[in-house]
C-alpha cells in the first residue's frame, strides 16, 4: 500500500519541491528549482501530482471546514488556574511523587529537626547497648575465664580429697574422670557434679585445706571456687545433703 520508493529523494530536490509547492522559497531558490524541473521529469511529474493532492485537501477544507462556525469555547474562570492546576497535576503519580518531596521551607526544617531528634535517640540507645555489652563482656571474661582455669586446676583436686578423706563414692564419682573435657565440667550443671564441686569447696574451707592452696595461690583459687559454685547454687535439699556429706567426712576423720 505504501510506496517508499522516493524517486525524487534520489535527485535531492524533495525539500525544494515541497517548499516550492507551498510557496516558501525565495526568488533565487525558485529559479534554481524551475531550472531543475526542466531537466527532471520525475520532479515535474511529482510536483503535478502533489499539486493535485494539495488541491483535493484544500477542496475538502473549503467544502467541509470553512463553512463551520468556530465552537464557543467555555473556560471555567470561576476557579483560578492555579488551584485547578494543582488538582489536575495531583492526578498523575509522577506529580504526586513530586509533591511528596516538594516541602515548604518550614516543612523541611521540621523534617530535619525530627531526623536530628531520631538520630540523637538512636545514638543514645546504641551507646547504651554498646556499654552494656562491654560490661557484660568484661563480666563474662571475669567469670568464664576463671571457670576454665579453675576447672583445670580443680579437676584433680576432688580426687585427692576423696583419696585422702575417703569420701562416699556417689560424691566423688564424676570427679574420678580426670580426662573429661573442661568445657563439659564448666557447663555441666548436673546435681552430682555440683555436689562434688560444692563438697570440694567445703573441703577447701576446712583449716587443713592444703590441697586447695597447693599451688600457692590459695586466695585466688578460693575465689575461683566461689565463682564456680555461683552458677550452680543448690537448692535447700542439696544443701542438706552437702551438710550431711560434711558430717560423714567429719565422722570419717574422727574415726
Amino acid at each position, binding site marked *: *500500500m*505504501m*510506496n517508499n520508493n*522516493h524517486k*525524487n529523494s534520489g535527485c535531492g530536490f*524533495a*525539500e525544494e*519541491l*515541497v*517548499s516550492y*509547492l*507551498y510557496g*516558501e522559497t525565495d526568488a533565487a531558490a525558485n529559479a534554481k528549482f524551475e531550472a531543475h524541473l526542466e531537466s527532471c521529469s520525475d520532479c515535474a511529474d*511529482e510536483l503535478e*501530482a*502533489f499539486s*493535485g*493532492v*494539495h*488541491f*483535493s*485537501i*484544500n*477542496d*475538502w*477544507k473549503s*467544502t*467541509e*471546514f470553512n*463553512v*463551520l462556525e*468556530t*465552537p464557543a*469555547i*467555555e*473556560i*471555567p*474562570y470561576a476557579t*483560578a*488556574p*492555579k488551584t*485547578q*492546576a494543582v488538582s*489536575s*497535576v495531583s492526578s498523575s503519580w509522577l506529580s504526586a511523587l513530586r509533591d511528596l518531596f516538594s516541602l515548604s521551607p518550614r516543612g523541611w526544617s521540621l523534617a530535619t529537626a525530627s531526623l536530628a531528634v531520631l538520630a540523637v535517640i538512636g545514638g543514645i540507645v546504641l551507646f547504651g547497648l554498646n556499654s552494656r555489652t562491654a560490661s557484660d563482656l568484661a563480666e563474662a571474661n571475669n567469670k568464664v575465664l576463671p571457670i576454665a582455669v579453675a576447672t583445670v586446676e580443680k579437676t584433680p583436686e576432688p580426687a585427692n580429697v576423696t583419696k585422702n578423706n575417703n569420701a562416699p563414692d556417689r560424691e566423688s564419682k564424676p570427679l574420678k574422670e580426670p580426662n573429661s573435657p573442661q568445657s563439659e565440667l564448666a557447663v555441666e550443671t548436673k546435681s552430682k557434679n555440683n555436689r562434688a564441686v560444692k563438697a570440694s569447696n567445703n573441703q577447701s574451707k576446712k583449716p587443713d585445706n592444703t590441697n586447695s592452696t597447693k599451688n600457692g595461690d590459695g586466695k585466688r583459687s578460693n575465689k575461683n571456687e566461689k565463682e564456680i559454685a555461683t552458677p550452680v547454687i543448690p537448692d535447700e535439699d542439696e544443701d542438706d545433703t552437702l551438710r550431711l556429706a560434711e558430717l560423714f567426712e567429719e565422722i570419717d576423720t574422727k574415726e
Partner: protein
Amino acid sequence: MLKSLTDEQLVELAVTDEPEAFGEIVKRWERKIFALCFGMLSREDEASDAAQETFISAYRNLPNFRGEAKVSSWLHRIAVNQCLTKQRRTKTRSETFLDDEENAEEKVFVAPLHQSPARQAEQSERLSHVRQAVNSLPAELKQVIVMKEFEEMTFQEISETLQLPLSTVKSRVYTALKQLRLKLERTPLEVV
C-alpha cells in the same frame, strides 16, 4: 489593552491576576486549533470537543507553562495530543472505509445547494476519499500535513511547534504527499 499583549504576557497575567486574560488567547487561536482538530479527526462534533478540551486543559495547566516554547506551540501540542487520544478512544472510525463513509455522509458533508444531486454525490464521494486518505496516514505524517493544509502554517512554524528540525518537517510533508498521491490515484477523482 489585552490585545496589545503577547501570548506569553497574557499567560502570565492569567496566572497571577486576571484569569480572564486567557480569553484573549482563546480568541486568537480557537479557529486554528479547531482547524487542526478538524483535519485530524474529520468530524465537526469531535473536532469541536477536542478544541474545547484543548483550551480547558491549557487553562488548567497555565501555572505549568514554563515559557520555553511559544504559547501557540504549546496549544498545538495539547491539541494534537487531544486528537490522538480521541482517535484511540473512538478506534478511528475512518480506518474502515464503510464506517467513514456512513459518518461522513450523514454528519459532515454539506453540499452546496446549487449543485445537482448527481454532482453532490460525486463530490461527496471524492471528499470522502480525501478524508479517508488523510485519516489513514500515520500520526506523525498526518499532523504535519494537517498543520500545513488546514492551518496553513509555514514549515518553520511547524518545526517550532513540534520541536523538530526543519528538514524533518519538510521530509514528513513530502512523504505524506507521496502517500496521499498513491492512495488518491487508486480511486479516480474528477477534478472540479
